[in-house]
């Protein structure tokens, strides 16, 4: 009886623990997905505004395609995976590789879906992918700067408290 109770509670504990872990994991990736989606939408909006302002947008299809683009962009982040800590040089190499991978996958797909047609189009589209990637890193840097400011403020307060 006691053993059964213990087993039951251990199973419940493991289940709740698993759910919390999954929720944390998904929250992180959903946030990243939304960020990348937003960046791609912004880039596409400005691209259309600049180069094809009279085009008609099949909204549902268009949004669906952007969602696929976002998924590919996130999956390609696997390039950064490493068992050991990446050095700054290794990070730059992988960033360049990631950009090449994005261009290699997204450009043909975008062409297939009719997002670009001619010779100049491909250059503009490639530049927008580069811009989107730069924006992603910029957003990331901004968030980290905010976290660093919070930590520094706390360190400063602690020092003042100790001094007083």
């Amino acid at each position, binding site marked *: 009886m006691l053993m059964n109770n213990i087993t039951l509670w251990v199973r419940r504990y493991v289940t709740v623990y698993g759910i919390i872990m999954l929720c944390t994991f998904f929250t992180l990736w959903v946030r990243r997905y939304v960020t990348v989606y937003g960046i791609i939408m912004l880039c596409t909006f400005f691209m259309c505004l600049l180069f094809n302002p009279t085009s008609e947008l099949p909204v549902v299809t268009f949004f669906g395609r952007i969602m696929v683009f976002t998924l590919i962009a996130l999956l390609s982040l696997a390039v950064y995976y490493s068992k050991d800590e990446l050095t700054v040089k290794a*990070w730059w190499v992988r960033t360049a590789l990631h950009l090449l991978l994005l261009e290699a996958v997204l450009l043909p797909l975008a062409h297939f879906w009719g997002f670009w047609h001619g010779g100049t189009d491909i250059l503009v589209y490639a530049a927008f992918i580069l811009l989107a990637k730069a924006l992603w890193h910029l957003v990331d*840097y901004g968030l980290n700067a905010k*976290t*660093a400011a*919070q930590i520094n403020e706390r360190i400063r307060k*602690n020092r003042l*408290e100790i001094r007083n």
Partner: protein
Amino acid sequence: MDTMDSGGGTMRVTVERIEPKDEEELIVRCYDSGAAWVSSVKEAASGHRTICGWQEDTMHRLRLTEIFYFEVVDDRSFLYTQAAVFEAKEKLYEFERLCAGSTLFRCSKSMILNAEKIDYVRPSVSGRFEAVLSNGEKAVVSRKYVADLKRMLGV
């Protein structure tokens, strides 16, 4: 159980005597786990904990509070203090266990850093953080572990 008022009567200090067979423990009840006095208590509690560091054939006993960071390089462990480097026998996970409850925290896959020795942190382009220590050295804090630092400081 001895109870006394600390200066000004602002905080009650309770000391409970236990049997030698029981494990000694310090429980801090506070509103803000990142307050400076809580860090001081943690530092004092971990201050008596020591670790052996080796310089050539000489063994040195180092207090945890002296250590700036612990790093594993090519499967060898090193302890860094204000101005000296010592080799350690402990593996990363062993050292991590040893410094539990102190101001040392895991900051990357191969390093444990003393939060008390951080002068300031700044973001790095590689998506991580760079911690500048009070002796001028720099250490990388991975994004994965920055939450631990925030929790430790009470951010």
